[in-house]
């Protein structure tokens, strides 16, 4: 049978190659290979997928046409954050992760893929410096799954089952954590102070016991404020030999104390602010690290890139750390955690970003975010009936705005803003009924003064 199907992605599809290769194999046709699949299992029907190949130009046209139905946050004046934040992505980040070698590599040996292993070791080194932690994982899936990994590690390290999580944690993140921890861990939630948002230390003390594996805190929290009682929390947690897990925004760590300094035993977090576009929430990077390398090395479930030497003096080598029984690849049916293809490309982007910023830049960008957030809070709080921030606490680049005294619902406000080309903050009234009519606003270096003024003017008009 002559096969005349030629396709630009299939090098062997030129005329004559199939016949020649089948002949070499000693077969008449490819069906002889597919006979391995029992006949009754083989699919022979028609697929309801467009039948024929589409040329590149037409693929580009069709997908752009679909994309053009989107109006992006970038086209609006947007104040959405809540786990996916708008930040400037330096051109160098895009350039380097666009390098075809990084983009298309996967799982080659340490010699053949030397560069990606070294890049991962450097990522781990920079994240370690940022967090003040010595054992740093290669990237895991995202901030939510990293929190789940951290809790399993704490439970294995302590032999205990209970994890305490503040009630200010995002319901979506909590849902992911619940899946990760089921059925190994019991999750209890700790109350917070309605005025300041801070963890209720009395409630925490009451709940922490010798059953507690870990207390998980966020800093800054999902609701944007900074948890200032970290040391006190660490003391309470450690008094029962439980562990403290801190989930951080890495971009805040030029200003905020590193978790390793205030007594966190395990740190986790979402690395998307480190040089990744929002990309519909897809470009995430889970950060996972521990203070005490010796204690946690054997139970970290994810990839670790270790430095080594080679048989030739003066050469570095970088490779997977392969302690038996650490990862699912060897634990298999005994596994309690698992890992796999995760998000290394973003790890490279994050490393480039941190190298560009350096110790000074990471502080400057944090300050910049805070300055604009404070500016916005100050102007917003000048609007009658608007409380910004809703919590009396320091904030980083997100804050809750409360509209209770305006007699206007957040859904109405956001619709009003939308009509003026503004995406208001995430509506929290469903997630946190306790907070009344509130929304989570995000202000970063991507916002300018005029934009903040526009928001304020628009809100004034809506709530007046």
């Amino acid at each position, binding site marked *: 049978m002559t096969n005349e199907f030629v396709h630009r992605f299939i090098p062997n599809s030129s005329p004559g190659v199939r016949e020649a290769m089948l002949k070499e194999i000693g077969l008449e046709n490819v069906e002889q290979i597919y006979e391995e699949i029992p006949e009754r299992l083989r699919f022979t029907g028609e697929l309801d997928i467009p039948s024929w190949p589409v040329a590149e130009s037409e693929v580009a046209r069709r997908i752009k046409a679909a994309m053009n139905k989107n109006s992006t946050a970038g086209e609006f004046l947007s104040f959405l954050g809540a786990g996916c934040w708008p930040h400037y992505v330096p051109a160098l980040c895009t350039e380097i992760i666009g390098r075809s070698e990084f983009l298309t590599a996967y799982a080659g040996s340490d010699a053949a893929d030397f560069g990606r292993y070294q890049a991962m070791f450097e990522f781990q080194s920079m994240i370690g410096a940022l967090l003040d932690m010595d054992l740093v994982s290669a990237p895991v899936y995202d901030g939510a799954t990293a929190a789940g990994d951290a809790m399993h590690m704490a439970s294995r390290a302590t032999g205990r089952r209970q994890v305490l999580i503040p009630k200010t944690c995002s319901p979506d993140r909590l849902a992911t954590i619940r899946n990760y921890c089921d059925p190994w861990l019991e999750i209890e939630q700790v109350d917070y102070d309605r005025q300041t948002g801070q963890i209720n230390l009395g409630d925490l003390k009451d709940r922490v016991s010798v059953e507690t594996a870990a207390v998980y805190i966020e800093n800054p929290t999902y609701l944007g404020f900074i948890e200032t009682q970290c040391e006190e929390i660490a003391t309470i947690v450690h008094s029962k030999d439980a562990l403290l897990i801190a989930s951080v925004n890495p971009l805040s760590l030029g200003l905020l104390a590193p978790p390793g300094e205030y007594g966190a035993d395990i740190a986790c977090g979402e690395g998307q602010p480190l040089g990744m576009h929002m990309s519909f929430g897809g470009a995430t990077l889970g950060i996972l690290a521990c203070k005490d390398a010796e204690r946690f090395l054997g139970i970290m479930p994810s990839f670790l890139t270790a430095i080594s030497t080679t048989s030739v003096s003066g050469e570095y080598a970088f490779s997977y750390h392969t302690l038996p029984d650490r990862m*699912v690849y060897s634990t298999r049916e005994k596994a309690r955690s698992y890992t796999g293809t995760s998000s290394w490309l973003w790890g490279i982007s994050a490393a480039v970003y941190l190298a560009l910023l350096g110790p000074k830049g990471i502080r400057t960008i944090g300050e910049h975010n805070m300055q604009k957030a404070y500016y916005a809070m100050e102007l917003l709080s000048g609007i009658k009936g608007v409380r910004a921030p809703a919590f009396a606490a320091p904030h980083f680049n997100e804050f809750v705005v409360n509209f209770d005294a305006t007699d206007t619902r957040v859904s109405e406000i956001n619709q009003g803003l939308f009509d003026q080309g503004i995406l208001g903050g995430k509506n929290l009234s469903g997630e946190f009924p306790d907070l009344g009519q509130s929304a989570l606003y995000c202000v970063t270096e991507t916002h300018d003064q005029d934009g903040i003024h526009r928001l304020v003017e628009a809100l004034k008009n809506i709530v007046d």
Partner: protein
Amino acid sequence: MTVESLTLAKRQEYEQTETGYHAVRWHEPVIYELSRQGFANEVVSEPEEGIRDRVGDVTLHIPDKVRRKAPPDLPQLSEPEIMRHYLRLSQQTFGFDSGISLGLGTCTMKYSPKLNDQLVALPKFSELHPLQPENTIQGILQIMYELGNWLCELSGMDEFSFQPRGGSHGVYANACIMRAYHRSRGDMKRDEVITSAVSHPCNAGCPSAAGFKVIQLFPDKETGDIGVDALKAAVSERTAGLMITTPYDTGVFDSQIGEYIRLVHEVGGLVSLDQANFNGVMTRLRAGDVGADLMHFNLHKTFSTPHGSCGPGTGAIGVKKELKRFLPVPVLEFDGYAYRLNYDFPDSIGKIGSFYGVAMNAVKAYAWIMSLGAEGLRQAAEWAVINNNYLIKKLVAIRGIDIAWPNRRKLQEARFTLKQMREETGVGTSDFNLRVTDYGIQSYFTSHEPVIVPEPVTPEASDSVSRADLDRFVEVFRRVSDEAYKNPEIVKTAPHRSVIHKTDEEPLYDASKTIVTWKAYREKHD
């Protein structure tokens, strides 16, 4: 044996032995060694004066006890230096685009069309926030919805979710759905999941992580199948389900899979197929048609969204309609007029990760399927199996190389063994694997654990390789085999022409010597 034990003259001789390739060798320092105190790049400008004047020193709002005292030890170097550093690291990385990568079995290394990368770099995609109002994201939802429909067609399933961010993550999601299904029926006694030892490790590990006791069945020595008898002995009223890879990494299509599915269903269990190895059976086998209740595809493998040095990936999970209510939320729906993200599924497992997964991979997979069309998908699968069978034919002709389960024809890949070579020359698969990279091809995948086939070699020739690539790959294997028989030392001291020489493995195994950050390294060596 290491290079160190060689005389300098021998080492030079081996380095100069022509292989047709020499890797770029920059001796690139660790980025911290390039760092200069006090250097800073201006990446982001300061806020406007009006803002600064109004808010003053905002850092004073941070109480002393949570304020950073010492700046983090990040590298300090200029933009051109950073560019050069990473460009060199990229040159020292062997991507699919760099050359022959068909050794990496189970990875389905294939060409990732550049258009697809460029489409998701457009602001129309990259600046989408996941929480925008639905009427502003109809374009991306349409793409994801239509991709879901196409994957339903390819799999015979009824609903898809792209939330899991990798293959293992997808298998874990399916294990969670299995758990939720049995719980919803009050069927709490079902605490066992059956898998096979030649399925991917996550098929055993993920149900275990989800709280199931896992029974692992081994392939028959003659057929490579796990066999109906073994499965019959394993199923019971405690069986929650079967989680199994098909075809296996051994390239064997378990001919009795239909029977296993029937047996598991008979006792009330569910069946989840891991279709990471879908490439060769694409358009020929539909998980749903053969009775699977759940399954997953790896969009970063079969569907060409690049592997990204180890992610971002997507484990797209497909389920039958009876299980739709357990899918992670939101579930994407279309009412004929608009696309919407539906969170109203009280029985849902909730969330398995942030937002909607790696949406860019959905766009790329969509573009890839569109580029091929149904006929192209069929052809791509055929080429994968033809290329692999061509490779098998050529490799088994090489001295010291045999194939496992030789009486079975293989689909997308095959497992070979260097057992004989090891016995005759002392060269085993780890030595062999280091030497092939000296010839300018990517290293190969050996095997997941448990290692059932000794001295394993598992290449996979996808639809993207040419006959010339296959011939070159075979030629390299033949050359290295010759070396093993004539001068095993050159193989056992390899690599000689790769980026680095043989890695000292002790720090990778011995916990007391393991170092994963530059700070810890300096502390140990200063």
